[in-house]
């Protein structure tokens, strides 16, 4: 079954599910998959740090990278996923509007993600981040195949 993940949201699934997210600009798209348990999840987080608005983060942890990522991992553990088997891929974190320092939300999203993964001894298997492109992600939970569509071109990561 196909599930669309909107901005500030996360969805998990198993086997025959396909998770899709559109219009990844500066937002982070994080895809996590356990090939043995065949469970996976996709997070579409908008902003790097929840400290900017803790109240919103309590209501919706998926809006922020630092609160959304842990919830994604913990949800997968509860579904039978094991940390040692998880394959983690990232997309997005771009600069859709050029180099204005004030709007480098994408770079800050990526920095927070890398710090969070590094602290928890998790490596990124692959990524398609940065640049001015808008991306769509198709994440097939029967195989873990992750396809990025951008500017009419499809690429597996």
């Amino acid at each position, binding site marked *: 079954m196909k599930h669309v993940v909107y901005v500030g949201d996360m969805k998990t699934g198993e086997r025959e599910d396909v998770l899709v997210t559109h*219009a990844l600009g500066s937002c982070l798209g994080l895809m996590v998959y356990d090939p043995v348990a065949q469970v996976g999840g996709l997070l579409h987080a908008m902003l790097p*740090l929840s400290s900017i608005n803790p109240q919103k983060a309590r209501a919706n942890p998926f809006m922020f990278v630092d609160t959304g990522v842990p919830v994604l991992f913990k949800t997968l553990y509860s579904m039978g996923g094991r940390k040692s088997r998880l394959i983690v891929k990232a997309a997005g974190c771009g600069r859709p509007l*050029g180099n*204005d320092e004030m709007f480098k939300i994408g770079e800050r999203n990526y920095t927070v993600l890398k710090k969070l993964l590094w602290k928890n001894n998790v490596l990124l298997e692959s990524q398609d981040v940065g640049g001015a492109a808008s991306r769509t992600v198709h994440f097939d939970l029967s195989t873990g195949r992750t396809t990025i569509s951008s500017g009419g071109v499809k690429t597996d990561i």
Partner: protein
Amino acid sequence: MNADIVERIETDAADFAARHSVRVAELLRIQMSSAGTAASLIDATGRQTSEGVLNLVNSGYFGLSRNAKSLAHAHELMGGERLAHVALAAWVCDLLVEPAPGYDLPAGDLWRHALGVSIASEHLADTLKIEGAKSVFLAGIFHDIGKRILGPYVAKASDDFDRQTEKGMSFEAAEAAVLGIDHATLSGQILSAWAFPPALVDAVRWSHAPDGLSPPSLLADLLHVSDVLCLTIGIGMGKEGLQYKASPAATRRLNATIGTLELVASHTLQWTNELADLPVTL
């Protein structure tokens, strides 16, 4: 090369404005009307409009102390000016929910973007304690109305647009280069024909290039920064969002910090989703 096209586009915009001018004038009158007259003016647009307005008015975003039971009650709770702005938003929703050809905006995205810019502008003004920005919600709702007119022309010339934007030209500059006029100018012409306040018209007209206004307009700066913020976080990005030139000077004039922008972004997403999901399509 552009004279004929520009004339056709401007004629389309003038026809569009004329077609809706009576309705817009009636809804603008609500600002100065009594509760009873305001309710009658909204009711005259049809039962669905009244319900759409009440749905918006009673959303958490407008923060009323009590639920408005009727349009007259809404007038009492929020005042005529605010009610007029909400009524105009409910009315124009119908025109903005359609897909916007040429801009790669599917059904609903232009409306979501209009809401996002309105909400971000109000939060930005509030957070930065900017006074005199009461009309910024209305400006945000209508800032891209010109896309309704220009969209089909952009779609027809998509190859020309791709050639211009591949050279690094902003989408708005490409509109001017290919078609001889950009959508912000058209939005300004339409709002001017509807007798919106001149400061609001100027802000919309210059919302993509606020540095061109002398003296600068806080309203234009608020619209510009909010527009950039919404495109950055993916609210109505479309084709234009990838080719938008942000003005660092506008952000500086507002004294906005990275923290301010991210705080506003966090509010904007939630409220945009809530308002966009309300049944206000008429």
